[in-house]
């Protein structure tokens, strides 16, 4: 038997039986709206953290850009979340329960709290434009509180989506559960850094880019190489192409962020590259899991290996 866990770049063609080659587990009935949500949710989280950092260290341009980007990303996320329901008009049925065994339920509550905070923080940026003197006075401190709250919730928003995918019978998502949150956390950081590099390039955004990219690349590498047969769907086909493209764009983005310090244009392009990388990586992870659910070998072979390991021979 091939070792489980260790590096296994060349996976031999699996020998297994099935019912006319039909899938065993069912792929999630989700469209790429969900993959897009993985990206926009991460972007909202990364931007809110950028804004909170800017706020705490007196960098108003980072703060403003982060808050506005977070609000935009949250609005897009809301759309993607609802659009993929079979009964969108029943979205609010998710608010009738809070269920810790359901990452989607937990996530809806995280998302709701985050949206409220991010919305207030972004609204506060409009303070100078408001005619009322009272509002001009009150809005900034309220915005600061909301901005810090959004920043505090952001890491949960960025990482729960990894649990959302992993807590399924989809073989390659489930197998990736130890590293997936790190990929998503890194990807969210990198996309937030991308916003910073475009709006106000400086050391914080550059460092955030480097740290985010390192997390993302490390996690993705583990997922692509240490899951035996279940790494294969991430390395082959459309998912493989997406993840390779994402990796290239991440590397280019980080290189540009670090080496292009002196140029606004290079910094902005690096930011764009990181944003694109974050989106493409999410689509790659999404597609890899879906491919693993469609082919019965990814359900049968690892389970057979598990049985063989359990039985003394």
């Amino acid at each position, binding site marked *: 038997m091939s070792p489980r866990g260790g590096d296994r770049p060349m996976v031999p063609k699996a020998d*297994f*039986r099935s*019912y*006319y080659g*039909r899938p*065993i*587990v*069912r*792929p*999630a*009935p989700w469209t790429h709206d969900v993959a897009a949500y993985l990206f926009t949710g991460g972007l909202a989280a990364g931007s809110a*953290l*950028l804004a909170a*950092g800017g706020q705490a*260290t007196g960098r108003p341009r980072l703060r403003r850009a982060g808050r506005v980007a977070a609000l935009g990303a949250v609005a897009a996320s809301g759309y993607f979340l609802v659009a*993929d*329901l*079979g*009964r*969108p008009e*029943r979205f609010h049925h*998710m608010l*009738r*329960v809070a269920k810790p*065994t*359901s*990452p*989607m339920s937990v996530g809806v509550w995280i998302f709701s709290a985050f949206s409220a905070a991010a919305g207030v923080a972004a609204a506060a940026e409009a303070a100078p434009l408001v005619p009322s003197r009272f509002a001009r006075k009150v809005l900034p401190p309220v915005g600061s509180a909301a901005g810090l709250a959004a*920043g505090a919730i952001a*890491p*949960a928003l*960025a*990482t729960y989506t*990894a*649990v959302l995918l*992993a*807590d*399924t*019978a989809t073989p390659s998502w*489930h197998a990736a*559960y130890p590293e*997936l*949150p*790190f990929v998503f*956390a*890194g990807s969210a*950081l990198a996309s937030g*850094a991308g916003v910073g590099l475009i709006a106000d390039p400086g*050391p*914080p955004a550059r*460092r*955030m880019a480097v*740290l985010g990219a390192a*997390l993302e690349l490390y996690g993705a590498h583990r997922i692509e190489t240490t899951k035996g047969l279940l790494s294969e769907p991430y390395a082959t086909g459309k998912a493989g192409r997406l993840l390779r493209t994402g990796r290239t764009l991440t590397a280019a983005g980080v290189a540009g962020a670090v080496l292009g310090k002196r140029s606004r244009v290079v910094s902005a392009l690096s930011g764009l590259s990181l944003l694109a990388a974050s989106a493409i990586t999410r689509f790659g992870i999404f597609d890899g899991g879906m491919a693993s659910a469609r082919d*019965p070998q990814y359900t*049968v072979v690892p*389970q*057979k290996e*598990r*049985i063989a390991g359990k039985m003394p021979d």
Partner: protein
Amino acid sequence: MANSLYGPLDPAPDAGYVDAPPRMGFFTDTSVCIGCKACEVACKEWNAVPDDGFDLLGQSYDNTGGLSANSWRHVAFIEQPRPDPVFLGMPGQDKPDFRWLMMSNVCKHCTHAGCLDVCPTGALFRTEFGTVVVQEDVCNGCGYCVAACPYGVIDRREGDGRAWKCTMCYDRIGDGLTPACAQACPTESIQYGELDVLREAAAERVAKLHAEGVESARLYGHSEEDGVGGDGAFFLLLDEPEVYGLPPDPVVTTKDLPDMWKRAGLAALTMAASVAVAFLGRRR
């Protein structure tokens, strides 16, 4: 609560029922199934399940394909070369060199049901009989249960948008009736009753088949020790589970959920720390 996510458990009391009736279940003995599909038809009739189109799949005598939102019983047909030809009493050929395996598949009404665990609306619930049922007036079609079922049973219905599956005829068993499929089955391949009783009957049946030389007979989903804490609907099979389209060693995904949240928490802390480092580092 220790076992709520994994391990042996009586699901109805765990879900909060006081004085729950005995857990009810199906024992599907595929060794006597004749592939008549009476169960498929009876289920559709009783539950008013819409038809799923007329497809010829070219797979033996199976044109249903599998369980779906519109097929809550599915009779699998497997044509196999037979390693040990035996006399079946069929005229014309006394020792056929192939065999048919037939099996009526259904929702397993798992002790630890992934579908139920992950449902974010509470549409899926545990009944007093220990079965798992979707409330169609609550489901919003998020599709999470579909991805969480280790058997690929529950499914979102095209056009309707909601998730559907076998209810073990919740509306019948509450009145002491037998579910439509078991009622219609002419060979008692589908047996309905108290799960404990069925488990005993199944153990006897396997022992009898082994005594008759049918070495390949085995139970599937009967053990509380398996990855889903045992199935409310379990089977006697004559070949490996995957041959019938069943997962060989299913494990409820939520077994790892506490670990998953831990990893996510660690990643979230790493993320917050990274931002702190990014902003608190030197100014240039």
